[in-house]
């Protein structure tokens, strides 16, 4: 770990972390632009970097992107990122009462505490969890990937069937190309361009950036009711009484972040509801109450640290952003998972170190520059969108110096837009695309080891546990509905 910090404190890596965090805050502050989009767009640039620098830049963008969302959530009731939706509940009413600076100060402090607490879990749990995951064989990995995919599809917003449909479609799009097990072309239909399959980057940039820009360009933005912060950010000695709330939100956020498919927005919502339930003044929540901002912001930032734990210990992405981070590691020939600590400890510990320092940098940047960052939303969006689209085109082209990738990117932009129109969540689609090759490879390896005997899974307790969790996740909504109907009927009868 000490070596990782030493490598991180090299001038070039610190510069990249600073740039990444600053860019993340700016992008997170602009409603409509997300950390996932920024990371997908930056990925082509990291090709030519060494892996530590690449990961450092991307982690900075991730932390900054989630934290920056609170600025517009408080000032404009327009969450910069989905994770900041709950921050609007009390942050915006505080701003309306003339307390924007106080809400921003509390939000920033809570974000940093959430980040640091979840870093403690990340640094403390990851190496031992990775050692534990080393016992896993192909059956365990296959069922783990299956469980993560199912949880993500079921728990994403909207219909469960559409979530599962999105994940299956994503997996199907990963099929064309050379089948690595037998070295034969699959589903290419005679096209040479499809021999290498659909590239990860064009798919990610298309599905997130292009579809979002096409959608946003059709929607004008109204910023007439924004009140910019005018004074310094106030913080008082009495704020020490918020420590238990900060810790509670951070722990809730970390543990929710651990579960695949449950992002920062759910973490913030659970933390907010918990705080409201145990509060002596629950009626004050939603009216501009300081603990509301603290609960939401500590949890959404802590969820990043939680989500990084399964990413680096088992190679399982908890959300789209982690799926893109997996893509970044894969580009550098690194396989996230338990062996990462053994094969590339500088990367595994580098992620952990970068996450902590990015939180500190985020505090400095947000505290000093929030007033100026808030002005960014006043920039003409048409120019910003044009710049992003040019970066999308050049970024996709730069991967293989081929326009085929650019057309693929546009195609996936249209697919992403179509899926969103039909209310199919994009998260399961992209994660299905990323995890499909891993799932197939592990399933084929499992069946080879067991001579095609599927019953072998019954002898693997962890694989059975993961499979059971996947089945329960799918069945739970209807079980819960039946239980609730039965309770209502019993009440009516009584």
């Amino acid at each position, binding site marked *: 770990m000490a070596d990782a910090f030493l490598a991180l404190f090299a001038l070039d890596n610190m510069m990249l972390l600073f740039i990444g965090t600053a860019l993340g805050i700016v992008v997170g502050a602009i409603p409509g632009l997300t950390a996932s989009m920024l990371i997908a767009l930056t990925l082509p640039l990291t090709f030519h970097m060494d892996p530590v620098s690449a990961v450092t830049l991307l982690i900075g963008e991730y932390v900054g992107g989630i934290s920056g969302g609170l600025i517009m959530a408080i000032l404009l009731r327009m969450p910069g990122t989905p994770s900041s939706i709950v921050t609007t509940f009390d942050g915006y009413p505080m701003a309306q009462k003339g307390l924007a600076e106080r809400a921003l100060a509390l939000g920033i402090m809570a974000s940093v505490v959430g980040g640091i607490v979840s870093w403690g879990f990340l640094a403390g749990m990851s190496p031992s969890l990775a050692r534990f995951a080393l016992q896993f064989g192909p059956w365990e990995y296959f069922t783990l990937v299956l469980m993560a995919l199912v949880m993500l599809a079921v728990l994403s917003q909207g219909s469960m069937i559409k979530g*599962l449909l999105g994940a299956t479609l994503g997996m*199907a799009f990963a099929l064309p190309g050379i089948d690595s097990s037998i070295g034969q072309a699959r*589903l290419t239909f005679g096209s040479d361009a499809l021999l290498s399959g659909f590239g990860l980057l064009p798919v990610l940039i298309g599905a997130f950036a292009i579809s979002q*820009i*096409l*959608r946003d*360009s059709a929607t004008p933005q109204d910023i007439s009711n924004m009140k910019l912060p005018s004074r310094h950010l106030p913080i008082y000695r009495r704020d020490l009484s918020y420590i238990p709330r900060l810790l509670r939100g951070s722990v809730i956020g970390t543990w929710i972040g651990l579960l695949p498919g449950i992002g920062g927005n759910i973490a913030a919502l659970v933390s907010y509801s918990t705080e409201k339930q145990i509060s002596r003044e629950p009626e004050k929540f939603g009216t501009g109450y300081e603990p509301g901002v603290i609960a939401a912001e500590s949890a959404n930032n802590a969820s990043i640290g939680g989500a990084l734990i399964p990413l680096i210990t088992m190679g399982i992405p908890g959300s789209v952003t982690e799926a893109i981070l997996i893509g970044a590691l894969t580009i550098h020939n690194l396989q996230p998972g338990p062996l990462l600590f053994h094969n590339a400890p500088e990367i595994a510990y580098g992620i952990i170190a970068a996450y902590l320092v990015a939180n500190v940098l985020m505090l400095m940047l947000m505290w000093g520059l929030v007033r100026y960052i808030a002005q960014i939303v006043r920039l003409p969006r048409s120019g910003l969108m044009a710049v992003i*689209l040019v970066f999308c085109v050049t970024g996709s082209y*730069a991967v293989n110096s081929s*326009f085929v990738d650019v057309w693929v990117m546009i195609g996936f932009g249209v697919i992403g837009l179509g899926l969103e129109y039909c209310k199919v969540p994009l998260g399961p689609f992209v994660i299905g695309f990323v995890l499909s090759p891993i799932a197939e490879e592990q399933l084929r390896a499992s069946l080879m080891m067991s001579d095609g005997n599927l019953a072998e899974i019954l002898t693997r307790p962890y694989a059975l546990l993961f499979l059971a969790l996947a089945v329960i996740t799918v069945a739970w909504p209807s079980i819960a509905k039946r239980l609730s109907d039965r309770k209502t009927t019993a009440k009516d009868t009584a």
Partner: protein
Amino acid sequence: MDDKARQTIADLALAGLTLAGAVILFIGAVSLPPPRFEPLGSAALPRILGGLLVVFALIVAVGAIMRHRSSDPIVQEDKTGPKADPKRGALVFVALIAYVFALDVLSVPFLVATPLFVIAMGMAIIGISWRGLISFAVLGLVLAIFISTVLERLLYIRIG
């Protein structure tokens, strides 16, 4: 057309396209060799995914038809924000296609195509004005020079 009819049509279109995708997977799987060195084989996953897609597509289609026939209203989306103008989105999309076509097929130099694309996009979003035209032209030119310098001098990649 009301929201309910629009959602039904969207769901039916989704189901239709998903079924088409499943058919492509089944057709592609037919030409793949049977398993030789391992039990599963190359065609298994396309067949499994194709089967799942058929099931999900049928559920979505049946759900859409049943919802359309029922008298229950659908959950309304929050429509308090500014109204979307799909024409602008379509114009931006056309500009993007034209830009990539110019770079790829017509081999228009990057330094020429990019400012023209930025101008076209700006005009598509904010409307036509002399002030906008000049500012977007300057933005496009600066952007094109910056990106081509980074690509050619630092990454040794030539575009357009």
